[in-house]
């Protein structure tokens, strides 16, 4: 739908929008206001839920993060204003929060890029016709189940609990450190640098990355399967190589989905149970540091939002190049 048309459809004058929502109103009982009423009825569950279970707690939670929270048995809690003390605590006093935040954000940046690339490559492969494609699709989507909710958390909790030596031993046995030998080799020959470190970090995290990319693969796959094969045929006839066809047809056609996927990946990563910041906030919560824990989670949310903003800005610019 073009921009102009949408604007015309959605421009409601104030008096009209008020009258549209009044149940029986003989003066304004137009088709349009009747439609609006039906629409609002359909969306009503969400509006109610949002106001009661989302907006109200959100405002309260912001308020709480600005106050000292003391539990009063039998009546709830008592708030006293304390001049951003909770935020100061989170940024300056809390020994772990900053550290975990920086760590996780770094990991997220690397993993998110790797997830997007991997999901895209896998989706391109799964979109081709080959024997066993159905089985492969089914397996690649399995992580949506296997890496959800409590499941990854339990296992990571396990590795924290272990003595360091033992966990290293087990890591070596279960092959988590795949790239060790190669890394050593490159280090000796003097190639190892920051770039390689990041690369090896990605390779070592490949299991996590594959497990986190189920939904992204499906989203890309949906975009890929919507591309008409006749485009490729035409390109082939004109003498276009597969490489060129990929960059000139496949990539531009799928790039709008890149944004959706990037946002999903970032959110997914920020909200994982095995995320250290998340765990720390939960720990604070169980220690009845309610004010501090809400302040920390708002900082965390702010960081997540900033990342989503940056990602959408960059991707929008990339996508815009093709959007002509």
């Amino acid at each position, binding site marked *: 739908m073009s921009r102009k048309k949408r604007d015309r459809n959605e421009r409601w004058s104030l008096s*009209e*929008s008020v009258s549209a*929502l009044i149940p029986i109103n003989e003066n304004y009982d137009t088709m349009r206001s009747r*439609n*609006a009423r039906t*629409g*609002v*009825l*359909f*969306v009503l569950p*969400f509006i*109610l*839920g*949002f106001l009661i*279970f*989302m907006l*109200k*707690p*959100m405002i*309260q939670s912001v308020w*709480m993060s600005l106050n000292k929270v003391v539990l009063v048995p039998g009546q*709830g809690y008592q708030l006293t204003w304390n001049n951003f003390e909770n935020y100061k605590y989170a940024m300056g006093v809390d020994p772990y929060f900053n550290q975990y935040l920086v760590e996780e954000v770094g990991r997220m940046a690397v993993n998110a890029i790797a997830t997007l690339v991997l999901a895209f490559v896998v989706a391109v*492969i*799964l979109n081709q016709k*080959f024997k066993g494609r159905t089985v492969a*699709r*089914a397996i*690649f*989507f*399995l992580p949506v*189940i*296997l890496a*959800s*909710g*409590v*499941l990854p*958390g*339990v*296992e990571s909790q*396990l590795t924290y*609990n*272990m003595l360091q030596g*033992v966990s290293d031993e*087990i890591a070596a046995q*279960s092959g988590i450190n795949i790239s060790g030998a190669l890394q050593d080799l490159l280090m000796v020959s003097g190639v190892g640098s920051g770039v390689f470190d990041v690369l090896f970090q990605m390779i070592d995290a*490949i299991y996590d990355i*594959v*497990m986190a990319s189920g939904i992204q693969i*499906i*989203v890309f796959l*949906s*975009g890929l399967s*919507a591309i008409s094969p006749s485009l490729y045929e035409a390109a082939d006839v004109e003498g276009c190589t597969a490489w060129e066809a990929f960059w000139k047809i496949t990539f531009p056609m799928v790039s*709008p989905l890149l944004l959706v996927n990037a946002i999903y990946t970032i959110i997914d990563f920020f909200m994982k*149970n095995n995320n250290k910041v*998340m765990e720390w906030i939960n720990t604070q*919560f169980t220690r009845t540091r309610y004010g501090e824990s809400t302040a920390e989670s708002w900082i965390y*949310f702010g960081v997540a*939002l900033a990342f*989503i903003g940056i990602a959408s800005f960059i991707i929008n610019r990339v996508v815009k190049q093709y959007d002509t």
Partner: protein
Amino acid sequence: MTLKAEALPRSDKRSANKKSGGYLFKSGVKRWTVSIVRGLLVFGLCFMIIQPMLTRFGTSLMQEKDLYDSTIVLLPRNVTLENYSIVFDLTNFPRSLINTAWTSLIVSILQVIACTLVGYGFARYEFPLKRFWFACVVLTIVVPPQTIATPLYMYFRYFDIFGIFKTFNGEPLNLLSNLTPYLLMSATCMGLKDGLYIYMLRQYFKGIPKSLEEAAYVDGCSTLRTFTTIMLPDALPTVLSCFLFSFVWQWTDLFYTRNFISKTMVVYSTELSSILTRMSRYFSQDAEKAIIVPPARQQQLVSIGVLICCIPLVILYIFTQRTFVESIAMSGSKE
């Protein structure tokens, strides 16, 4: 389409190749290389996804001494089912899983009904502030539930509408002792990942041509009836896949479950998350002081817990994977 030379007999193939100036041979080689590389990549990645499950299953059948024997890798030498009965004890097995099953079912049904209605409303009707409300839907996806956990908890712990309950009972209601809060939230699209389902369903409904409904309206069909008899059957695969998503994610969810369900009944995911602490207590029942359970043993028992959680879902997934994969593939494409 590339030319295919396989169908020809060998001598014809050679002459055809010569005539094409080596094109057929080259394209054949290219095709083979591509499919070999692709095969390796797909197999490798698939193996990586499946392998932990297989290892878990293998170790789950081992006796404890097999764990420390480095000659035993995947297949147990001394097969035993005793580990399973230990984990059953640790996680309150049949009861907790049954509770998980029915709560997940109810919650996901409520979620999907609400989200379908809302998604349809967003896709088809124009009403004031529509874009604002849709932005709110996106907001619910983005805001981590942890940020609003405390106020929500307090809200339900001391539940009251304009102080009515306080005047009658002397104190506000404690709704956390039953399932009401979570059911209310699910029915109003505030459950686990509901924003995502609304988004998916809205995308799908937007893709259905409007003329279908218009025809129904012209024939005198009411709004609700059009929705139930014309739109819903069409959207059934997407609705079903949303249902499966919400069922699976609810099944393994820890956060909402811990806050809103585990207070009233034993649920599997919370049992699983605290399995480690309970493990040491379990093994030190007879002994005087707490025993540190050996890490390998810990890992084995946790793996079994994870397996028990996954197996029902994987079985469900095997039967429904087509709905899962194909319908999402359809809903996403209609931007």
